[in-house]
């Protein structure tokens, strides 16, 4: 046994961590220990490792920075509602067999069904995919800024994406340069957004140079779209609005508009002028996840917000079709889960269920049913739609539950950015 006194800082340490070869520099870990290698050039060595049935990401990094990033991710987790990876722990005190001290590591849990941007761009990149990624990143940045998180290095490669119905949701992966404040200054927000624009355009220049993206795509416009999307959303969520005292309907309208954007209003400040002719309203506390919270309350299903929106729409249709509008919503929702959602998802062969999240699969099946119903000019029943979806769509899709990077034996491809099969 190597002589090393490991120190593991973790909220819930998994004893299996002790079995990993901490006495070996991460770069030299044997392939049989690894689930995958990351793609592209990173300033730190990162490896994906299987542990107790899941996958963890291990990053070699200075001790102080490792503890700092761990704490920051924990704080973000505690605040809640911030889409970011979950920290597992920090390991220090690593020593190689020759006595050389080795760098500390930060361990995070791999986010299931998450996709690195290179995986999305390198298939056939459609311009709308880029737009949807940018939209997701703008939402993430707004959500982080709302809780006072300054990122300091916003980029596509520091983000993971998950399919979320017909959109994507973005998750923060790398918090190394970040900082949590009580409230961000405009300077901090603008700097983050400006840096995001520069980094994203740079990353797309790289995709163009690697011929993963059409060189005629206007990448500057895509970068500008991020700034625009961010500013629109920030204004919608935080701007003060003023109207005449007679136009009170605008209070409800503002809340509805925020709900439609996927946000709940926790606190809305309303003031009037001295003479009471003008009303000012300004949201003070807004929280993302309007649809997912509602779906969770009704059905116990915990899914992403746009998936929830889609599922709720289907629930509404079910309620109308079964003529149960007068009934308690919870009861109808329970029946919808047992009669519609679960049978549909279960009809997908077990071997293919790892390809997508259940809610995502359900969303795609609904889309597919609509598509074949249009084509065949009839109302295709759900079981038939599932069968067609499985054979014609899902069978040709890759497994996205743990789409990580390069196979461990393809190390040589790593610094080229690698290509996705």
């Amino acid at each position: 046994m190597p002589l090393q006194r490991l120190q593991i800082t973790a909220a819930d340490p998994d004893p299996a961590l002790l079995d990993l070869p901490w006495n070996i520099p991460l770069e030299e870990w044997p392939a049989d220990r690894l689930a995958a290698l990351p793609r592209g050039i990173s300033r730190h060595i990162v490896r994906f490792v299987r542990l107790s049935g899941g996958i963890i990401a291990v990053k070699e990094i200075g001790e102080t920075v490792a503890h700092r990033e761990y704490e920051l991710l924990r704080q973000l987790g505690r605040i809640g509602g911030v889409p970011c990876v979950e920290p597992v722990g920090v390991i220090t005190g690593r020593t190689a067999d020759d006595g050389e001290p080795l760098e500390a590591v930060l361990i995070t849990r791999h986010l299931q069904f998450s996709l690195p941007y290179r995986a999305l761009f390198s298939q056939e990149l459609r311009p709308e995919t880029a737009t949807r990624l940018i939209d997701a990143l703008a939402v993430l940045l707004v959500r982080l800024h709302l809780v006072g998180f300054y990122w300091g290095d916003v980029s596509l490669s520091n983000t993971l994406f998950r399919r979320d119905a017909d959109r994507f949701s973005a998750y923060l992966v790398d918090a190394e340069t970040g900082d949590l404040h009580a409230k961000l200054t405009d300077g901090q927000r603008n700097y983050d957004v400006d840096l995001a624009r520069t980094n994203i355009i740079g990353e797309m220049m790289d995709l163009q140079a690697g011929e993963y993206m059409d060189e005629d795509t206007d990448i500057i416009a895509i970068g500008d779209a991020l700034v625009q999307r961010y500013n629109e959303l920030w204004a919608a969520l935080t701007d003060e609005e003023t109207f005449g005292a007679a136009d009170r309907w605008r209070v409800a309208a503002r809340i509805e508009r925020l709900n439609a954007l996927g946000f709940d209003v926790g606190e809305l400040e309303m003031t009037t002028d001295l003479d009471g002719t003008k009303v000012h309203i300004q949201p003070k506390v807004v929280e993302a996840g309007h649809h997912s919270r509602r779906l969770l309350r009704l059905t116990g299903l915990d899914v992403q917000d746009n998936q929830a929106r889609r599922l709720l729409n289907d629930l509404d249709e079910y309620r109308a079709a079964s003529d149960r509008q007068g009934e308690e919503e919870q009861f109808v929702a329970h029946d919808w889960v047992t009669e519609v959602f679960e049978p549909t998802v279960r009809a997908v062969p077990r071997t293919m269920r790892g390809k997508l999240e259940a809610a995502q699969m359900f969303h795609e099946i609904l889309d597919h049913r609509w598509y074949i119903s249009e084509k065949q000019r009839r109302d295709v029943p759900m079981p038939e739609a599932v069968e067609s979806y499985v054979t014609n769509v899902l069978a040709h899709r890759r497994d996205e539950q743990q789409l990580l990077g390069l196979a461990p034996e393809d190390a040589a491809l790593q610094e080229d950015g690698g290509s996705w099969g």
Partner: protein
Amino acid sequence: MSETTHNRINADTLHDGSSGTYLPVKGTVTTMATVTYDKASRIYPGTERPAVDQLDLHIEDGEFLVLVGPSGCGKSTSLRMLAGLEDVNGGRILIGDKDVTHIQPKDRDIAMVFQNYALYPHMTVADNMGFALKIAGTPKADIRARVEEAAKILDLTEYLDRKPKALSGGQRQRVAMGRAIVRQPQVFLMDEPLSNLDAKLRVQTRTQIASLQRRLGVTTVYVTHDQTEALTMGDRIAVLKDGLLQQVGTPRDMYDTPANVFVAGFIGSPAMNLGTFKVNGGFAEVGPARIPVSRAAIAALGAEDNGKITLGFRPESLDVVSQAEASAFPVEVNIVEELGSDAFVYGTLKGSLADADVHSGAGDNQVIVRIDPRNVPAKGERIFVAIRPGEEHLFGAGSGLRLPA
């Protein structure tokens, strides 16, 4: 300020003697990129004590200034105020003679160095360095010229048309620096840039940043918590504590004449030994030792000092002497640290000094003594040491301020 003093164009600034390289850097060619904090304060909402309290600091054109201090001292906040990332709640900040207090970060003509390390694998080193200029719409020929100049300074010329995978770790660091250089900002800002690097790269990059800054002559503000980094890199160092500027000066000033007890204990490694003693009849009573204190120092003591001084002495200002000497005091050796060219004794004061209020970098009631590495005492041995005359530092015990010698 008149145009003539404002625009300095002469052969010297256009020519870098060491490599014969023309440096088309705005900061040294057209404008005086001084930085001035004019009673600048940052008070976070909901707090009473300012994070940065009326900072007055003037940084000269081309100067490398290091902001240093323990965590929470306000050094990063001060840097971010200059960057436009923190609001300035009182006072002003100027770059040259332009008041930038309320200007957005991207319009300040500053560059945060190392804000982005990520290298793009499919792009050449040249494109990796110049991509931000391309986004800004800079003409191609200009980009190439600026990238080539930066590459010369960074010793990356032969790699310009290659991919980053051909580069070593240190060279990749230099590409990251190159990204900031090609933007030709008036001021470089660096916030603990080495903290993310492993130990080997850290020392290497430290030297590179310092020498590069001198070659470029661009005003640079650098934040670190590490006093060794500050001493080895800065033209001048500003030490902060609790949001207050403690002292600003050259590394030599800070080391030789610390303005107060805090700076005395913070600057230097191993740290200065500091002890508080009663002054009696012109002498500080250090256990059995009588250490003369100047009349000027005694006269400068205030009511809050209560007739006591804090005496500071660096590990290298102690000599091992015989017990008979008037200024000798006993130290019991706990550990000897041998570093080849140097050796240090970590010891405890003994005898009547056992209860003295003394501390050092090694902890309370501990002193550190540099000794001849060819003649080290054994653990547990008692040695007698004396402060070399003139090398003591005197501070008021209550005020903590430096007393005249």
